[in-house]
């Protein structure tokens, strides 16, 4: 089911990225996003789960039924995994950003900025 409701927001992209290197539960995603953005993106539980809900609906992530064996893990904690679709969308988004960045470079935006 892929009824994408508009573009990927930066926060959604961050969540997809957090899941790119392995299945994670909610808190792990929050921590991952905060660490990798040096604390610039601080998600709260409300927004995080609204994003999770949308990503689940869009089929970009799924809930993992076979959970990793971690000692003392709470059974109520749910793990999420990036799907093939999700990975493709994330790659697509990264490429789009890369192109954008390349264009900014080619316009010598950064040099102009430095000189000013």
């Amino acid at each position, binding site marked *: 089911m892929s009824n994408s409701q508009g573009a990927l927001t930066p926060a959604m992209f961050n969540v997809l990225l957090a899941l790119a290197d392995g299945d994670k*539960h*909610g*808190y792990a995603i*929050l*921590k991952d996003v905060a660490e990798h953005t040096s604390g610039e993106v*601080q998600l*709260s*539980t*409300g*927004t*995080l*789960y*609204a994003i*999770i*809900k949308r990503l689940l609906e869009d089929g970009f992530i799924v809930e993992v039924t076979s959970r990793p064996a971690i000692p003392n893990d*709470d059974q*109520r*904690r*749910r793990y999420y995994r990036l799907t093939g679709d999700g990975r493709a969308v994330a790659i697509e988004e990264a490429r789009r950003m890369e192109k954008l960045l390349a264009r900014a470079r080619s316009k010598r935006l950064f040099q102009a900025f430095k000189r000013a």
Partner: protein
Amino acid sequence: MSESRPSIADRLYRALLRLLPFDFRSEFGDDMEETFRDQRAHARRARGSVALLRMWWATIVDIVRMAPREHLSVLSQDTRYALRMMRHNLGYTLAAVVILGLGIGVNTSIFSVVNSVLLQPLPYAQGDRLVVLRQQATKLNADDVRFSVQEIDDYRRQNRTLSEVAEYHSMTFTLLGRNDAHRVRTGVVSAGFFDMFGVKPLLGRAFRPDDDKPGAPAVLILSYEFWKTSEAGDPHVVGKTFEMNDRVHTVVGVLPPIPQYPNENDVYMPVSACPFRSSQRMIGNRDARMMSVFGRLKPEATLEHCHADLSVIARRLEHDYPKSYTKGMGYGISSSALRSELTHHAQPMLLLLLGAAAFVLLIACANVANLILARMARRERELTIRTAVGAGAGRLLRQLLTESLILALLAAGVGLLFAAGSLRLMTEFVSQLTPRAREIGIDGWVLLFAVLCAGATTVVFGSMAALYSRTDLAHGLKAGVQRAAEGRRNLVRSALIAAQVAFSYVLLIGAGLMVRSFIQLARVDAGFVPQRVFAVSFDLNWSRYTKPEQIRSVADRLLEKVQLQPGVLSAALSSSFPLDPDTLGTNGWSQTFQIEGIPRSDAETPPVAAMRAATPDYFRTLGIPLVSGRTFRESDTAEALPVAVISRSLAHRRWGALDPLGRRVSFDNGEHWITIVGVVGDVKEFGLAREAPDQFYRPMTQLASLGYILVRTASDPARVANQVRRAILDIDPQTAITMEKTLEEVRADSVSSPRTTARLFGLFATLALVIAVTGIGSMLALSVRQRVREIGIRMALGATPRDILGIVIRQGVALVAIGLAIGLAGAVALTGVLKALLFEVTPTDLPTYVLVSALLFGAALLASYLPARRAAHIDPQHALRCE
């Protein structure tokens, strides 16, 4: 983490989560709590309590911000789903929207009237403090004898509870200075009148105290409508002059477009400009009563204070002027709120209609509830499966409510269209009851009312759905439970049908009584023959006819000319005519008199009777039969013996078995004696539902008072009317013709209010009947569909199609019988409120009950017959295979 008891923080967070939609919570709630607990632990460990507080704050803000978005997304999902379902079941949707729309429509329509007429404040500054003063002669049966100039002065000067007192009367004058004479309705008011009502002129100024002084230059204020139509909205109209009553009048102002009370007038003038009001005859005579009086309560005064205050003045007047206020008249004064004065005629009728409309809505609701139940039975599989795959009960309920709400809102739209479409009709109807009819319109309150109706119906349907989902869905897949639930649902459906029948029955009885009452009214023998008679009301330019001889002479010429017109069988002039719209419901021109040989003290109440001046052919023209003696003759001239003809009821009341012919009466305390020469039949002068009044007729030669010409024609009155109009203008082109109507029209108009009420009631009842009957039909059709197998088995076991027909029809008839029994009890209990509106029909009128019961029963039988026939034609083999 420990599982035992949730900490305060956990509970706080859980409370916060309640802001989110139910689905969201049940899907992610636990997980979110877990995550938040981790977050909290980490923050406390690593960064201390300030960081913890900051994180709490961020979390709260975040959830408060995202919750509405989530709710909206659920709503839009539900809406899309509901719309899809409604498109799939277009027939059902249309039926429900139309039925509910009609129900909401009739309610909104009546409410728009109730709102404008009964609920909204008067469109005047502090309109609720305005009062109407009224003088009575209770012993003479006169509730409103108007005020004389001296009385107005007395009350204005002596009262302590009114901050202002203003007077008013209305006359028709001829406005000259253009191509033709123009008759204008003129409100004659004291200078403070418009200020008291808080009306600011659109152009120019209001009247000033100076305008009231005798000899002041004559000035006019135009009504908005008159300014727009006759002066084409000329912005420079102030300063323009007109000739009126042989004086030059200058326009000083134009009124804004407000409803005018107490009457609609074309122009207004101050009292000094009215030749009648400013004449010495009026000013000098305490008994010359012509004016209405209004007042504004002082801020601290109540209506009761005012009444007590005015009564003291009345007693004083009674003491000071015993000749004007005789013991026999029962003099008194009353004050009532202008607002109730303007609406008390309309109130019972409107509330009654609102009640009837509410019944229609109830029936519509019951009907649509049944539709919903039937459809849910069909959607059972879908709903069960959705429950099975994990849609929570709350989620389903929300979905069903959304569907109901959309349905109800669509119906409210239909209802508003209906109300807007019926606005003109309602205004016309209500204008017979209250001058506030012009204010009727659809405003925010009416919109709100329609939406509230829709909301209420949604709640009804929603609870139906809830009932359904709670009891059944969980067990939907188990066949046995399903059957039990099916039985319960059928019971609910049957109850709904019986309720529809009961409500319809009550409405039908109400309508039946109203219609029967109206038929009785229409059949009343009014005492005259209205066919092929028409009345023309005309106003001479009175300033040219001041003496009785002048009036007599113009009357002679007029009558002669009209009688000569081809097609005219007979014609007569008169001072008024039966069922004249202007005197309807009043006591007309009534006069006290004294009978020769019966002395009477002042303390005794004098006899009263209605008075009319007429020319000899009056009785022949109207077909009023002569009972004894004679009618008027040419020889009854002004100089001849003064004579009168009386009505049969007057003869009977005053002389009983004695012969009144040759007896004499006096209208001026014995100064002149008038001999009774004839007795004629009674005529219902002031309304078909009222008793015929005691009536005097005087020859116009001896009592010069004219205003109407009555003509009996050989053929189509319309054609002759034109010739008559021309003939009148030939005699005096300055004459204004103010009305032209056949007496059949006049008679029909006199009962237009009960006719419209009967029609509206009839319309509501018909709607109710149609809705209820289709409800029975569709319910039986559904039941037949559900029982195909059972019917198949019965047929296989030897039941004939006739038996099956009987079974289904019996099912329908049983429901109708129960509904009828309840409805009968309801009707007997409720129709008492109609009593005051019924004419010669009792609220328990047996023929109406029999007829209505038969009608409802017959219609229900027909509605049951169609599905029954379907059932009887079921092929048993096919039916058994189907399952």
